[in-house]
C-alpha cells in the first residue's frame, strides 16, 4: 500500500504534468489577442483586431471549408467500415481474425510519413491526381481504427443475452440490430465519429502527401508558420480551432464511458 508521502508525491507530479500539457495551449490563446504583428513576450497589450481579419481572409475560409468537407466524408466512411469490422471480429471466429485488429491499427502505428508517402506513390502509380478525394481516402484509412476501437470496446461490454432474447421473441437479425444492438451502441458510435472527425480535421503529416495543390486548414497553418507570414491570423485561427474541437471531444469522452445499460433503457 502506498504511503501518504507517495500519494502526495504522485498527486503533485500529476498536477505538474497537467500544467506542462496545458501551459503551451494557454499561451497560444493569449497570443491570439496580441495587437502587434511581432510575436514577442510580454505582449504590448490586448486586442481582438485579428479576429475579424482572420474571419474575412478568403484563403482561411477555403481551407476551413475543405477540411470540414473532407472530415465529414472521412468520418462517414470510417464509421461504416470501422463498425462493420468491429462486428465481424466480435461476433465471429474466422481464420485471420487476429490479423484484422493488426491491419486496422497499422495506419496509426506506422510512422505518419510512411503512410503519407505510401499513399502518394500509390496514387502516382495509378495516375490518380491528388484532389479532395485522395485527402478523404487518406483520412478515412487512419480514422477507421478510432471507430473500430470504440465500437469493439462497447460490444465487449454489451451482453449477448439481450440479443438472443430478442431473437427468441421472434425478432429477426435486422430488427434486433435496430431495436437492441444499435441503441446500446449509439453512444460509442457517436463518440467514435466525433473523435474521427477531430483527428481528420487536424491531420497534417499524411495530408501533405495526399492534398496536391489545395490547402486544408492545418496545411495552411503549417505553411504560414513556416514562411513566417500572417502569424497574427494564425494565432487566431489556431485558438478558434482548438476551442471548437474542445467541445466535441469532451462530449465524445462522456459518451464513450457511459454504461450501455443507461442507454439501453
Amino acid at each position, binding site marked *: 500500500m502506498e504511503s501518504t508521502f507517495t500519494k502526495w508525491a*504522485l498527486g503533485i507530479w500529476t498536477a505538474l504534468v497537467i500544467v506542462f500539457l496545458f501551459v503551451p495551449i494557454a499561451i497560444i490563446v493569449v497570443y491570439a489577442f496580441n495587437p502587434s504583428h511581432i510575436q514577442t*513576450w510580454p505582449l504590448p497589450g490586448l486586442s481582438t483586431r485579428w479576429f475579424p481579419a482572420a474571419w474575412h481572409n478568403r484563403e482561411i475560409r477555403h481551407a476551413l471549408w475543405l477540411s470540414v468537407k473532407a472530415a465529414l466524408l472521412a468520418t462517414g466512411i470510417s464509421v461504416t467500415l470501422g463498425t462493420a469490422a468491429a462486428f465481424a471480429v466480435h461476433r465471429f471466429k*474466422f481464420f485471420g481474425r487476429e490479423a484484422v485488429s493488426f491491419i486496422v491499427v497499422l495506419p496509426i502505428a506506422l510512422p505518419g510519413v510512411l503512410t503519407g508517402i505510401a499513399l502518394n506513390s500509390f496514387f502516382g502509380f495509378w495516375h490518380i491526381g491528388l484532389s479532395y478525394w485522395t485527402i478523404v*481516402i487518406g483520412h478515412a484509412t487512419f480514422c477507421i481504427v478510432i471507430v473500430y476501437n470504440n465500437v469493439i470496446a462497447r460490444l465487449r461490454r454489451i451482453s449477448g443475452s439481450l440479443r438472443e432474447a430478442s431473437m427468441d421473441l421472434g425478432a*429477426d437479425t435486422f430488427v434486433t440490430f435496430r431495436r437492441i444492438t444499435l441503441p446500446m451502441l449509439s453512444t460509442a458510435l457517436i463518440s467514435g465519429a466525433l473523435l474521427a472527425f477531430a483527428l481528420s480535421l487536424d491531420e497534417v503529416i499524411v495530408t501533405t502527401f495526399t492534398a496536391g495543390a489545395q490547402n486544408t486548414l492545418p496545411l495552411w497553418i503549417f505553411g504560414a508558420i513556416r514562411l513566417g507570414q500572417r502569424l497574427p491570423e494564425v494565432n487566431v485561427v489556431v485558438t478558434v480551432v482548438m476551442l471548437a474541437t474542445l467541445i466535441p471531444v469532451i462530449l465524445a469522452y462522456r459518451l464513450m464511458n457511459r454504461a450501455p445499460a443507461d442507454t439501453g433503457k
Partner: protein
Amino acid sequence: MQRTASAADFNAAQRFFRRASSLLWRRPRVAATVLLAPPMLWFVLIYLAALGILFLSAFWTVDDFTGEIVHQWTLINFETLATSETYRAIAGRTLGIAALVTLTDIVLAFPCAYFMARIAGPRLRATLFVVMLLPIWLSYVARVYAWRLILAHDGVLNWTLHQLGLPAADIGYTNTAMWLVFSYIWLPFMITPIYAAIERVPGSLFEASADLGAKGLRTFVKVTLPLVVPGIIAGSIFTFSLTMGDYITPILIGGPGSSFIGNVVYSNVGIANDIPFAAAFATIPAVVMVAYLFAARRLGAFEMM
C-alpha cells in the same frame, strides 16, 4: 387495388428480410463475409497495396531527364543511403531522438497513470482521463507552434528566466528543443496504455506482496513493473513511431542540422521528386516498426491499446 398491391409489396419485402435474416443466422460465414469484406477490401486494395507499391518503388529509379519513375530493378537507392555519411547521421538522429522521447514520456507518464489507476477516486479518475487525453485531439500544428513562440529568443521562456534572474536559454531551433517538443506532443499517448495496464493488476497482489514483507519499492520493482511492461510497450509504439515519422516538428522547431528521415522523404516527394529514393529511406522506419509491432504483440501489448 393499389392498396393490396402495396400490402403485397410489403409482405414480399418482409419475407425477403426474414429469409435474409435466417440465412445470416444459419450461415455465420455469409454474415461474417458481408461485414468483413468492405473494410478489408479498403485496407488490402488501398493501404496494403500502397505499402506494397512503396516497397517496390524503393528498388526503382528516376530518369534524370524526364523525371519519370523507371520500373527497373536497382539497388542504387540503398547504396546511396548506405554510403552517405549525411543519411546515416539523419537516420541515427531520428532513431536516437525517438528513443529518447519514448524514455522521457515513460518517466513523465508512469506516475500520472499510477495516480489515476490506484489513488484517484472514480470521479477524479474520469476527469483526469479526459484532461490528460484532451491535447491529443487539439491541433497538432498549433501545439508545435506554441513551443515555437515559447522557445523563441523573445519568448515566454527567456522572459521567465530573466524575471528569475537567470541567464537566457537559447534552445530554440536545436535538437534539445525537438526532444522537448516531441516529448510534449506525444505524452498523452503514453498515459492511457500504462494506466490500462496498472488498472488490470488486481489490488490483492499489492496486499499479498506487502503481507509477505516487501516494502513499497520492492513491491514496485518485483510486482508492479513486470505486470505493467505490456502497457509501457503499447505506449512506446505510439511515441516511438510518431516521433520517427514526423517532419513538421523538425521544420518548425529544429535548426538547420536537425533533419529527420521524414524531412528527406518530404523534400524528395515535393521538390526533388525522387519517390524511389524517398521510398528507400522510408523502409528504415517501416522495418523498425514492423519488427517492433510483432515483438509487442507477442508481449501482449495490443491488449493495452
